[in-house]
């Protein structure tokens, strides 16, 4: 059997051939990647959207539809189209078409990496009604209890944000603005509280200037399959 490497050594390729080969390889590779991207994109976007919608439904119990809101001309209002670099929040509406509250994405430093979460906020009552961690790399078994420990998540069922949310030692929660920390994961618990405080601070002024009441617009109805996946 001939060794192909020794074989090819005999015919040194010309520079043109090298350039043409690499160019061709790049072209074919680019084509393959673009077609794979186009082919998978609808599915990927649908996944993102449904994950976000499920999270909004979880942090705002009792809503039946949601709207995307963003800052337009100095105040918050429904805005369906996506503008580059803009931060949006999600308004949840109940079955009588009344605006119930907002799901607000927020992020901040955790113990290991940035924690991204979504929290449900009722501007009238100035309280948080649910928290969902979207992304985190907290320590398995300790820090990841910020989204696995039901007792910790129950802190956020009705949590007043005034004067500010305070983390207290586990089992010593007395007031409605206090959060029981997770034993052994104080830093991660504190991170969640800090992110919530910062998120409330950032949006509450804009939200208090917003007229709440009727949703009044076409609502995006939740897909039945999405709801089922949530409860599972």
């Amino acid at each position, binding site marked *: 059997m001939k060794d*192909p490497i020794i074989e090819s050594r005999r015919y040194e390729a010309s520079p043109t051939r090298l350039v043409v*080969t*690499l160019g061709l390889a790049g072209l074919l590779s680019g084509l*393959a*990647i673009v077609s794979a991207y186009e082919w*998978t994109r609808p599915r990927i976007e649908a996944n993102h959207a449904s994950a976000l919608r499920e999270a909004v439904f979880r942090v705002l119990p009792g809503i039946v539809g949601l709207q995307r809101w963003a800052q337009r001309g100095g105040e918050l209002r429904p805005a369906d189209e996506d503008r580059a670099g803009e931060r949006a929040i999600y308004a949840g509406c109940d079955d009588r078409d009344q605006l119930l509250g907002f799901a607000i994405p927020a992020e901040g430093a955790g113990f290991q990496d940035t924690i991204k979460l979504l929290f449900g906020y009722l501007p009238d009552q100035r309280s948080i009604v649910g928290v969902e961690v979207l992304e985190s790399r907290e320590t*398995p*078994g300790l820090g990841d209890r910020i989204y696995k420990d039901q007792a910790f998540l129950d802190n956020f069922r009705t949590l007043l944000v005034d004067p500010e949310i305070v983390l207290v030692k586990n089992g010593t929660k007395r007031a409605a603005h206090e959060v029981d920390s997770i034993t052994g994961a104080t830093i991660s618990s504190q991170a969640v509280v800090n992110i919530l405080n910062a998120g409330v601070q950032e949006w509450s002024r804009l939200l208090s200037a917003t007229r709440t009441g009727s949703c009044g617009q076409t609502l995006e109805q939740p897909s039945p399959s999405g709801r089922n996946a949530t409860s599972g």
Partner: protein
Amino acid sequence: MSRDGQNRRAYQELVKGLWRENPVFVQVLGMCPMLAVSNSAINALTMGLATFTVLLSSSLMVSSLRNLIPRQVRISCYIIVIATFVTVIDFVLLALVPDVHKELGAFIPLIVANCMILGRQEAFAAKHPVGLAAADAAGMGGGFALALFGLGGFREVLGSGSLFGVSLFGAHFEPWVIMLLPPGGFISLGLLLLVLNWVRSRRTQRSEDLVTAQGNPSR
């Protein structure tokens, strides 16, 4: 070479990657994904299958193009081929299993940097016909996936008390947190290497004993 001989050769190339030249346990290649994503069986299995697919497709491609690629730019061409398949796999996983993709994170794109894959192109696929290259890639990829899956299963059983998310020891299981953390990866991989090397040396010892016994009837 007869057809039968070819088949036997292909079979040998296939099984060598599973045990005798296992990329993880013998060559100790691809340690980065091995340690980083083996904290649960499903992560390990997905990563193993993704690597397997990339290796098999790249080997097929490189082997069939081996006479067209000029020697001077062969490494660049291999990398382009591998990177293309990795990117495609990345999109496919994102579309099909978004949750697992989130866990694996940066390690899917990093398959490109898995030296085992480039190594097989240079050492094998570029010099052999398509059939043999496929057998070699399937063996090596399979060996890698099996090793990764074994480690992932072990770490998940001790670290979370479950396998594929199915709880094994009841609700009051105390998880061995360290097994899910990087030290647990190193400890488990070390222990696995220890056990396999022990088995291997026992086997060699036994076959050597056999040879001496046959060569020297007085014993």
